[in-house]
């Protein structure tokens, strides 16, 4: 700035800035550059920005920066930038988080070990991979009764990145061994539904996926109106129980192989007023 004021260097023109922005292809890099150019925020402020500080409804950025030399409270988002954020950046961010959040959090760790979303190493793939019932039991189907033994089929969470990698690895191994066809048995979650799964809370991959989805569908105001102050520890089961009364649970708990608490026949959840529950914005809104 000082060199510009002394006449040693020229500041870039608006046209030059626009040309640079247009030529940046990476969406993350582009939004960083545009925010720097449009808002006057310092690079460190932009890199430390979180979505909590961005109020899209008011088109305001709150850097919450307070130092001896600068008291930066708010910056404004122009209409074109708002359009870029909502149409391009937010979908890209969703994609980016999905692909890289887990990879980044796993740097330096044993990538072969399956982990929970919070980074805790799971004791086995089932404990972190199996879908959960309303009361947190593993969603399985017990088979082999006729043979007088207890085998089980587990309904896995498709949101779990380890499960996807694991399956891809074994598919690739079978191709390397000469397979010409891969048969995926029920990849459609039909059994997860039929066996009363998909209720995992924020500690599970399926719960984290639901939280991400809710963030993309509802605004903060809508969530507050629904009685959700924070999505961080959101659990659909707890939310519905608190809002519509504790449901009756019909379940036959059993411990499989000395490790997994499951229910067979599948656990059933009976709310007092099912129609009312089904009309909740979360269940009604896609």
């Amino acid at each position: 700035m000082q060199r510009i004021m002394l006449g040693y260097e020229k500041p870039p023109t608006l046209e030059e800035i626009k040309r640079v922005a247009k030529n940046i292809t990476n969406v993350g890099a582009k939004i960083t550059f545009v925010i720097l150019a449009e808002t006057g925020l310092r690079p460190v402020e932009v890199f430390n920005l979180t979505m909590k500080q961005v109020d899209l409804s008011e088109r305001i950025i709150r850097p919450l920066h307070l130092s001896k030399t600068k008291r930066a409270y708010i910056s404004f988002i122009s209409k074109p930038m708002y359009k870029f954020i909502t149409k391009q950046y937010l979908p890209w961010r969703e994609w980016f988080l999905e692909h890289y959040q887990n990879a980044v959090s796993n740097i330096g760790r044993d990538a072969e070990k399956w982990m929970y979303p919070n980074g805790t190493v799971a004791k086995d793939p089932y404990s972190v991979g199996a879908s959960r019932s309303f009361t947190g039991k593993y969603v399985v189907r017990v088979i082999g009764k006729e043979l007088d033994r207890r085998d089980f089929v587990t309904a896995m969470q498709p949101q779990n990145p380890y499960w996807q990698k694991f399956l891809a690895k074994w598919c690739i191994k079978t191709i390397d061994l000469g397979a010409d066809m891969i048969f995926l048995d029920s990849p459609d979650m039909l059994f997860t539904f039929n066996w009363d799964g998909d209720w995992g809370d924020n500690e599970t991959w399926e719960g984290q996926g639901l939280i991400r989805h809710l963030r993309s569908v509802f605004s903060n105001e809508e969530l507050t109106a629904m009685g959700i102050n924070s999505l961080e520890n959101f659990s659909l089961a707890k939310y519905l129980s608190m809002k519509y009364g504790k449901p009756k649970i019909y379940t036959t708990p059993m411990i499989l192989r000395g490790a997994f608490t499951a229910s067979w026949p599948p656990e059933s959840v009976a709310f007092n007023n099912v129609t009312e529950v089904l009309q909740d914005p979360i269940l009604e809104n896609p």
Partner: protein
Amino acid sequence: MIYWYQSAIKFVKNLTTTVKLHAKSMGKNVLITSNEYMAWFPHIILTPYMDVIYVETNQFLLPPGQTNQVIYKMALASGNYSKHV
């Protein structure tokens, strides 16, 4: 509901893409297949990622109102009518 179906679609899409790419890198063409129970919505939306769909007509009761089981299942199993069933 859409969220849960999206999760399944993403899973199948990513998995089949990875597998197909690997097969292609080896100069092979691998067929991806799945089974079709009752031509239900989530099955139909997975058909674009499958090369072959198997129709299992004996597994579940049909959705209500359907009288011609075989025709109903085979027609819907083809999804966008591009698959042979």
